[in-house]
């Protein structure tokens, strides 16, 4: 009897985990496929029958090819530079904006915040042509600046940080003012350290979006020298390797791995940041 009840208690649990595992597998499938292809030789990839496990391993050849025939490390360095620059500039812009919207009293504050919300609603693709023309007029197309400038102001970042800043008690800021801190010092010494979860969450959003972005670099940049990883892979396919899917997939694995590692390291922070904004 007790055995039966313990089984019946476990059934929903097993069911739940089963469903989660299935959806997880569904999301992972492209990645598994990518890793599998990156380990297979060319003839294995185009073989008529389908099998996940390579019949013979040529992982070493594929990964070497990816590194040798394309400046993969250069793409990665470009990606790190561009993402870091974007995130840094976004922070410099968003943090004071968010602080003003969350904690200061001034005329037109609500209108300004409404403008920020509207800014979130506009898809970046809609701005691609105006941005392109603007950068053309500035004469900075096909430079690092063209990859960074359009993303300097993040409406989403302002919104996310504003929501978090609002949860920091006013009394703490008033104490800081009485202790003699100026407004910028309050931002740097009080607001920033107290908002690390929100900043980490925003950082992950920003870095993931721009690391993976293919759309904008494809428009703004033609030069392999300054390509970000996603664009680099594309150029590399066109010019050098043609149909050699194995090295191409190896390249894809190489550009995805840093992101996965970064996400795993910051996972807890990411969830904290999301949960805290959702609860407001």
């Amino acid at each position, binding site marked *: 009897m007790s055995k039966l009840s313990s089984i019946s208690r476990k059934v929903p649990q097993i069911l739940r985990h089963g469903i989660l595992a299935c959806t997880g597998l569904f999301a992972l499938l492209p990645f598994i496929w990518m890793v599998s292809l990156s380990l297979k030789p060319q003839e294995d990839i185009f073989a008529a029958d389908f099998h996940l496990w390579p019949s013979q391993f040529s992982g070493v050849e594929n990964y070497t090819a990816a590194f040798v025939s394309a400046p993969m490390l250069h793409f990665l360095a470009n990606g790190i530079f561009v993402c870091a620059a974007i995130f840094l500039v976004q922070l410099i812009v968003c943090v004071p904006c968010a602080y003003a919207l969350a904690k200061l009293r001034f005329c037109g504050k609500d209108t300004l915040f409404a403008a920020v919300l509207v800014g979130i609603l506009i898809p970046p693709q809609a701005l691609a042509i105006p941005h392109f023309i603007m950068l053309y007029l500035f004469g900075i197309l096909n430079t690092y600046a063209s990859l960074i400038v359009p993303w300097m102001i993040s409406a989403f970042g302002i919104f996310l940080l504003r929501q978090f800043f609002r949860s920091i*008690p006013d*009394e703490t800021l*008033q*104490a800081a003012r009485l202790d003699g801190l100026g407004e910028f010092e309050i931002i740097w010494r*009080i607001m920033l*350290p107290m908002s690390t979860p929100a900043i980490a969450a925003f950082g992950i959003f920003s870095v993931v979006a721009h690391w993976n972005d293919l759309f904008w670099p494809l428009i703004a940049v033609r030069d392999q020298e300054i390509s970000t990883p996603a664009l680099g892979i594309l150029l590399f396919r066109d010019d050098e390797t043609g149909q050699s899917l194995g090295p191409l997939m190896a390249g894809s694995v190489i550009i995805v791995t840093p992101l996965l590692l970064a996400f795993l390291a910051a996972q807890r922070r990411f969830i904290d940041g999301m949960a805290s904004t959702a609860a407001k």
Partner: protein
Amino acid sequence: MANIHLDTIAKGYGETAVLKGVSIDIRDGEFLTLIGPSGCGKSTLLRIIAGLETQDSGSIAVDGDIIDGKRPKERDVAMVFQSYALYPHYTIYDNIALPLRTRRLSNAQRFPLLGSLVPGRQTIEVGIRQEVGNVAEMLGISHLLDRKPGQLSGGQRQRVALGRAMVRHPKIFLMDEPLSNLDAKLRVQMRAEIVDLHRRLGVTFVYVTHDQAEAMTMSDRVAVMIGGDVLQIAPAEELYRNPDDIRVAEMIGSPKINVVARKHWRIGAPQFALPDSQIAFRPESATIAAPSGGMLEGNVAGIENLGADIFVKVELGDAGPMVVRRAPGERRLEIGESVSVITDAAHMLVFDAAGKRVRPVERIAA
């Protein structure tokens, strides 16, 4: 050392007037308590003194100098907040040292990361360490300096907040309900410590509370605020014995003063009390007598035995309930028993229909 002169301070948020022209003179070295129900404007007044809010009209002078336009850091005031408002990411040491650092280090020396390389910083830091150490010792928190505020109990955080306020020797100490987050026992202990601190520092304290026990036990004078007005400023004893307004009488004293309208008094009401006036008396100045032997008739509705005192709640019918204090050892009363209440004219406080105190004519003449 500073006296504060508040001259008709008014403040409103939109349509609602929070302060309606408050004038108070706070003497040098005085412990003044602002007491009132929540929303009476007492905290707003404190924030205006600190410079965290700006008044709509009126002005503030400290030692004769108008400080209206000055920013909080230029006013030489320190404030202790209800939530303590410690910086959670700093250690206790850094929390207490921050006000000294912002005042003594130059902008270059305070610059993030690079500041510690600027010459001269090390000598100043040594001085700061000395002073933080002194303050921590005075408050008994020396062993906590390496911890973060999150690891401290409420009473310890309270002490840190006091330390952060004390460390730069301000002219004026402002406290906004600093004890309301502590448990009852700790509150009594901290009450004594703050009074002791005031005596040792000798600076002007302005203390905001809604707890009349704190106001009564700690202050030199108490200002009672209701609805944005100051009703009376006097030593606690004076407020208790001789209130100017029925709202002051009701706020000070526990249990609350008894108020019975003139028309319910069969006999014994003072001659000068007009028919629409109200007569108030403290629970300890009334006695219980046999039915129909006293001034007010009623039934015993409840008995609270606190050991040293017994409070008897008497239901007076239309006139509502009232409380009489009895000494233990008097005859036991039963719930529902009919009794009467006697009080003597000397202890009766008469208020007119608007709640203002009415005093006998001969006393005014004298």
